[in-house]
């Protein structure tokens, strides 16, 4: 059982009848029992339910779906009917959703087995998992470091081999940054490709659910299952389904890979930079054409992002009032007092800071100066990408300016923490897809991620480029030792 760890490897063994689904699930349950104490990636662990489903999978003998019998984790902002979904927030500590998210339904129908709900920064606001109101998650490569965020539990659980794959959500880099810090593959799909029905909203015009996996093949397999139109999400796009696994081949000769000069400028860690340069060389050796390009407005993306995402969050989080679900304060004088005490006691510090920023940006007298301005800059950033994609098929950049930082290192200064997302937020602002794949290790053995960004609905291009790179290297095969 040692070392088999991807969806496609498990399927090979199942097809050869060398292993049963129950053995697979049992192996992951044992793994969780032995490493979870150190990693702390899970908020909920469901071994009994998982084993029962695994036995059913063995009995039915159905091997039609590649996800049948595969144990996985779900970020705790994705609703699961009958099982607590808390967003790692005190305000939802007891919330049991009356329905499941579309992605949870899709995975369930595919036969995949939910093994746990994963830790996160409260309401997906954060880049380190230190904002979880429940506990901190630790990076499996070095437990003195953060796993990244906000889908830190999802990335750490895959890196620690506690689950085969997981789903996260990405509003400004929350799938890709932790994937980069934990040495796994993370994809943020095009806005509208995956239904957000049942995803607890942070910033609705930016949020998107995506897979975190061990390799690119698994990423394509999971994307096949979760992508598609859903009438319950009016921003979900109706288009012909693609089989993303058909784009996985090494033939990338002539593919145009763009390098934006702004992404290799000040603030980028020199070890990260040199590994990225190696990656560019790998692509050149494979016959790809390297094209220099420019995203002149990208330096304004973070400013625009914090206004837009906080404004949307302040509106979305107005629903937590202690009336219909979640936490309610114990003592209050009247309705207004109930609202204020419930919200002030129920939300953590970062969430309140963003509600405050967003409320301010939307308030009378400041709306034009901040919110409208940020939406105008959003247009410029989107046009930047449109222009860049006239001369290339995918853009290559670092996922993050650094490797995983120490726990506590950035928690005192919110602005410094925000800078961790500098390469990932422009992608959400433009609504386009991007994937983070491992591209090496720094001198301390910490993983470094490379981000490949594509045109809207160009998941096939970035998966193809990522797969070719993965086949030419073996960074994805190295495992964290816990």
């Amino acid at each position, binding site marked *: 059982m040692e070392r088999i760890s991807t969806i496609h490897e498990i399927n090979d063994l199942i097809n050869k009848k060398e292993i049963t689904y129950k053995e697979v699930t049992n192996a992951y349950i044992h793994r969780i029992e032995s490493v979870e104490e150190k990693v702390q990636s899970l908020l909920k662990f469901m071994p009994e339910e998982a084993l029962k489903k695994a036995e059913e999978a063995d009995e039915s003998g159905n091997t039609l779906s590649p996800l049948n019998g595969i144990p996985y984790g779900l970020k705790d902002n994705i609703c699961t009917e009958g099982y607590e979904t808390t967003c790692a927030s005190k305000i939802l500590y007891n*919330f*049991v959703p*009356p*329905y499941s998210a579309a992605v949870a339904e899709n995975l369930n129908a595919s036969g995949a087995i939910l093994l746990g709900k994963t830790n996160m920064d409260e309401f997906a606001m954060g880049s380190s998992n230190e904002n979880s109101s429940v506990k901190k998650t630790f990076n499996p490569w070095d437990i003195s470091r953060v796993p990244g965020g906000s889908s830190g539990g999802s990335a750490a659980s895959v890196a620690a081999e506690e689950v085969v794959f997981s789903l996260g959500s990405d509003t400004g880099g929350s799938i890709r940054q932790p994937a980069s810090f934990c040495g796994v593959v993370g994809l943020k799909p095009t*806005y*509208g490709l995956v239904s957000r029905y049942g995803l607890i909203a942070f910033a609705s*015009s930016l949020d998107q659910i995506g897979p975190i996996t061990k390799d690119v093949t698994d990423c394509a397999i999971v994307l096949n299952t979760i992508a598609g139109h859903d*009438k319950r999400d*009016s*921003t979900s*796009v109706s288009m012909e389904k693609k089989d993303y696994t058909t784009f996985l081949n090494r033939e990338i000769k002539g593919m145009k890979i763009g390098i934006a000069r702004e992404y290799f400028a000040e603030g980028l860690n020199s070890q990260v930079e040199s590994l990225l340069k190696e990656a560019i060389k790998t692509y050149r050796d494979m016959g790809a054409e390297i094209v220099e390009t420019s995203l002149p*407005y990208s330096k*304004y993306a973070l*400013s*625009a992002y*914090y*206004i837009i995402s906080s404004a949307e969050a*302040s509106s979305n989080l*107005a629903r937590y*009032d*202690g*009336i*219909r*679900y*979640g*936490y*309610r304060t114990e003592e*209050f004088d*009247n*309705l*207004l007092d109930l*609202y*204020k*005490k419930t*919200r*002030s006691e129920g*939300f953590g510090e970062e969430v*309140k*800071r963003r*509600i*405050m*920023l967003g*409320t*301010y940006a939307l308030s009378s007298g400041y709306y034009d100066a*901040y919110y*409208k*301005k*940020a*939406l*105008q*800059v*959003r*247009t*410029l950033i*989107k046009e930047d990408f449109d222009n860049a994609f006239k001369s290339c098929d995918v853009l290559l950049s670092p996922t993050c300016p650094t490797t995983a930082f120490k726990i506590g290192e950035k928690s005192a200064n*919110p*602005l410094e923490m925000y800078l961790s997302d500098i390469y990932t937020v422009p992608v959400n602002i*433009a*609504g386009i897809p991007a994937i983070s794949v491992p591209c090496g290790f720094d001198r301390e053995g910490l993983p470094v991620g490379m981000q490949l960004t594509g045109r*809207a609905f160009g998941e096939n291009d970035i998966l193809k480029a990522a797969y070719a790179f993965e086949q030419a290297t073996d960074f994805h095969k190295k495992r964290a030792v816990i």
Partner: protein
Amino acid sequence: MKLTKEDVKYVADLARLEFTNEEIDRYVHQLTDILEYEEQLNELDTSNVAPTAHVLPIHNVFREDVVTPSLDREKALMNAPEQDKGCFKVPKVIE
């Protein structure tokens, strides 16, 4: 843009939040820092740029106007901190 304590208290009231004096001082400082960082957006002349609220070219999404079942009352109420006779119970609103 330097915020004052009064600004922070006003915004907190709009957001239905309340803070201690120390928290207000901290927010004055942190939100001022963030808004100063936001000042860089003013380097850009956007007078002729249309705002993008949404990246997709999807506008109104209509469905057939037919009645379909929605969430059961029981399920809708299952998480309520307080309920009474099949309704959410709230403190008295009108004196």
